């Protein structure tokens, strides 16, 4: 592992940790912390008598487990696609 990869991984872990701590602090403070996207959208929709509808199934609706399953499936599919092309990328198309 060269310095670039090692430092990138360290940076990734630090960024993730900062985001986790910030998210925990926000929700633990009990301030509600509703998303501004939703707040503004609801206000805008109310001026036009509109309401958001759910067309796409939301994996979050199945609780934390839904998100775990959703992200795992996405990771598996992306991993297979990426792995399939890896030989082309690394070996310049010398697929066995």
């Amino acid at each position, binding site marked *: 592992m060269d310095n670039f990869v090692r430092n990138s991984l360290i940076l990734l872990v630090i960024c993730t940790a900062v985001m986790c701590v910030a*998210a925990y602090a926000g929700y633990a403070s009990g301030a509600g912390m509703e998303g*501004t*996207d939703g707040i503004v959208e609801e206000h805008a*929709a109310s001026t036009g008598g509109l309401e958001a*509808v759910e067309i796409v199934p*939301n994996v979050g609706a199945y609780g934390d487990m839904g998100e775990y399953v959703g992200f795992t499936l996405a990771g598996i599919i992306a991993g297979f696609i990426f792995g399939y092309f890896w030989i082309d990328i690394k070996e310049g198309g010398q697929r066995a």
Partner: protein
Amino acid sequence: MHISDGILSTQWCIVWYVVALVFIALGIREIKRRTEETPSYMPLLALMGAAIFVIAVWHIPVPVTGSCSHPIGTPMSAIVVGPFATVVLSAIALIFHAFLAHGGITTLGANTVSMGIVGTFTGYGTYVLLRRVNFSVWIAAGMAGFVGDVLCYLTTAMELALSINPGSVLYHWGLYSLGFVPTQLPLAVAEFIFTAAIVKYIADTRPDIIAKLGGAIDG
């Protein structure tokens, strides 16, 4: 900046889809061309796609306003892999976001325009402009992140106003912008910091990656 299904009129959904599809088509052509020239462009694209997906879906609390929002990540991606490719990455990330209750399918075009086109091109343009007048890499990259982030949200406000309040677009554009700005400004500063840090880091340690892939590190 994620607008949900059912909020925009059909007419505006189609308009934003058409605009987005033009840029996506140009982006796919650009990706094909660069991948043929440099196969290692593909894994970097995948990395940037994953980064945009995570950055633009992770709501970060802003305690001073009692609400939360997210950066967009597309200015950083535009500097590293190019703006047209970033539009494609942005559209793909937004499709996945729709499954996490962020955005929607009918509003995919509108969300791609705000995050993938305006956020990308204004950020990229800011970076190139500042580099041409000899600003350092980190200031140019940071300002790209800041400008791209803020203008992305102003575009979302405009999309809402155009569709929902056609009789008083400017008034409602200002109103919705004021709703976004207090929470978004601190996050635009965060976008300044991480865009500057990441681009400066790549420029210092592996400029060959960007130079080989036709990015804009050298302005």
